[in-house]
């Protein structure tokens, strides 16, 4: 049951709109209830072929030999696809935005690094024929030691999982093996605190488990191009990834997404398109490659399990004056998107609270399991679990009501956040007050009258407003970095809103990165976004 509190923040809103705010029926609902919404697989072809993938049974092994001769002759088999057939057999998803080095093959050539890693594809007249042929393939392996725990993987002597990052961690700015956050002086804060406590939190990997599994159909079309019906969540992201792996110009691929049968982040990795396109190019016929439910469950990328240590220093009056977070993201065998999630996690520390002394160290760690990827709340869900359990412990430790403890420390407009940006447009306090009222969770009067807005409601006892603004360590002066691509359209100023200040001036920029990280020179006409994280190896 849903209700609105239109009275809160009413002065910041113009509510007399026509279509905005209306409970208009979904544009796609009639198709859903009549079974006519088009999903990628809702196409029929007279000569559709089927691609099935032979996957590694081992978590870490060297491929000694492959004998697919019997399989190639099996009934219904049109083609066997091997690593050598893949034009560009090394990629990382975020190479499209110059973030990270290519580290993952589409088909394993020499080493398999997770159970289920694709080794070989079989294109046949039916999925059954392909599976029967697959049983005739003989592969011999030399098993290699595997590591499954994120902290074990960082210890000296741990098996090296990913050849591109031999020390089992993603490299940040070509300088560090993890993403750092430093604000104020946590050690000083812990020394000054009345109560200091640390705890360890462990998320589980999470499978997206959409009711429609990953899949795509690549179809040679009339003018030498390929139509690709796909379940992707990111049409051009998958198109560009497929174009790179197949070494074809991007406009040779015509991607058509359908309604997607649930994504939740599990259909960003472009898991099937590159190989269905390659197969269609090799056999000159439409090819469908779709994950079985077992494949989706175990070999489709989950959100990685994050292990997070949180240490708090708090005062008897309820103020949190120091918080340090050390987190390990389990990226699995390859990078995919976990490297990006780590930075998003660092940006989220210390949670929606104004804390003068904060430090964060977040690692992207490689282990011998299915590579992890984005999943609803990527990089943040795990940290929220850790931080909000930690908040409960802090309140309990000093005998304070857990909700009042949160309202006291909640960030407000004008506070300085740990990533050195001013808090704006905040509403944590109002959410807490409204939820408490709705659930009749008692709050003392002063907490019911606090406000996120500057100069409103009762001030925070004990936290001088200015102290929360200036970080203990003065931020070094910053020169603006290269200007981003100029945009010719004016910023969207919603016509109906009260005149709001000019579009936010670009936030103070950090110093231009040391030359080592400057990209080797943009390869395209317009200045591509500068790589801020690492050079992109050609």
């Amino acid at each position, binding site marked *: 049951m849903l209700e609105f509190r239109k009275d809160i923040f009413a002065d910041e809103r113009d509510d007399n709109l026509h279509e905005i705010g209306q409970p208009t029926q979904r544009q796609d609902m009639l198709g*859903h209830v*009549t079974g006519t919404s088009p999903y990628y697989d809702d196409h029929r072809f007279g000569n559709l072929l089927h691609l099935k993938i032979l996957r590694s049974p081992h978590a870490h092994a060297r491929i000694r030999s492959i004998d697919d001769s019997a399989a190639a002759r099996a009934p219904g088999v049109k083609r066997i696809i091997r690593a050598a057939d893949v034009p560009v057999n090394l990629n990382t998803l975020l190479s499209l935005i110059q973030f990270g080095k290519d580290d993952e093959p589409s088909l394993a050539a020499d080493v398999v690094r997770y159970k289920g890693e694709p080794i070989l594809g079989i294109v046949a007249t039916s999925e*059954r024929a392909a599976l029967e042929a697959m049983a005739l393939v003989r592969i011999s392996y030399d098993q290699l030691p595997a590591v499954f725990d994120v902290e074990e993987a960082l210890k000296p002597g741990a098996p090296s999982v990913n050849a591109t990052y031999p020390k089992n961690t993603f490299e940040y700015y070509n300088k560090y093996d993890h993403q750092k956050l430093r604000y104020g002086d946590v050690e000083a804060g812990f020394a000054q605190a009345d109560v200091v406590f640390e705890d360890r939190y462990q998320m589980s990997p999470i499978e997206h488990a959409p009711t429609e599994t990953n899949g795509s159909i690549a179809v040679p079309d009339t003018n030498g191009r390929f139509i690709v019906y796909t379940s992707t969540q990111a049409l051009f992201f998958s198109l560009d990834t497929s174009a790179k792996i197949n070494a074809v110009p991007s406009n040779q691929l015509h991607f058509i997404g359908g*309604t997607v049968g*649930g994504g939740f982040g599990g259909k960003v990795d472009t898991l099937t398109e590159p190989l269905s396109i390659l197969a269609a190019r090799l056999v000159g016929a439409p090819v469908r490659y779709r994950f079985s*439910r077992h494949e989706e469950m175990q070999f489709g990328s989950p959100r990685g399990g994050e292990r997070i240590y949180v240490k708090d220093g708090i005062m008897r009056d309820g103020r949190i004056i120091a918080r340090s977070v050390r987190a390990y993201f389990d990226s699995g065998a390859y990078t995919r998107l976990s490297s990006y999630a780590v930075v998003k996690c660092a940006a989220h520390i210390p949670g929606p609270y104004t804390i003068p002394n904060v430090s964060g160290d977040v690692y992207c760690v490689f282990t011998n399991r299915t590579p992890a990827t984005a999943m609803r709340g990527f990089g943040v869900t795990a940290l929220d679990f850790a931080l909000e359990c930690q908040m409960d412990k802090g309140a309990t430790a000093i005998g304070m009501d857990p909700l009042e403890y949160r309202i006291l420390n909640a960030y407000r407009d004008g506070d300085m956040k740990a990533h050195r940006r001013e808090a704006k447009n905040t509403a944590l306090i109002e959410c807490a007050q409204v939820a408490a009222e709705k659930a009749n969770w008692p709050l003392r009067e002063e907490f019911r009258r606090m406000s996120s807005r500057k100069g409103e409601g009762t001030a925070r006892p004990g936290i001088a407003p200015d102290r929360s603004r200036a970080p203990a360590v003065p931020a070094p002066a910053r020169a603006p970095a290269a200007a981003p691509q100029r945009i010719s359209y004016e910023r969207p100023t919603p016509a109906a809103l009260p005149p709001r200040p000019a579009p936010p001036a670009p936030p103070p920029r950090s110093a231009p990165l040391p030359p080592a990280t400057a990209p080797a020179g943009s390869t395209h006409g317009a200045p591509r976004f500068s790589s801020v994280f690492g050079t992109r190896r050609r």
Partner: protein
Amino acid sequence: MKTPIQFLLNGEEVATFVESGANLLDTLREAVGDLSVKGGCWQGTCGTCTVLVDGSPRLSCLTLAESCAGRAIETTAGLRRGPDLHPLQSAFMERFAAQCGYCTPGMLMAAKALLDKNPNPTRENVVDAISGNVCRCTGYEPIINAVLDAAGGNSRRA
């Protein structure tokens, strides 16, 4: 080795050939062309492919196509009566009981099987009726309310 098969699909006589051993889901989608039936697992664990066979709900992915010879099969494509939506369809619309829509055909069939036998079910009856159908988007509440609305013959909003 192809096997001829003939059955009633949403009231129409249908005849086609199937690979022997083929399941009803692949037969409906690929041989007959009824794309309103969706497949989610081919293991019998998600309910997405639910259709009615002689009025009873069946997982079409675990149903041998040949065993349906001569039977009456109902799918979501057959729910409408011409332009008019079935009460379940309009109730699902009014309750916004679908997001990605992939489980919706299976949910509608499971709900129809219930209502055809029990026109005024309790909430518990509805929960049991869809207990074999996985939905990852809606949280089930809108679907349960939609079925109860449709049962009440008044797909008005509560």
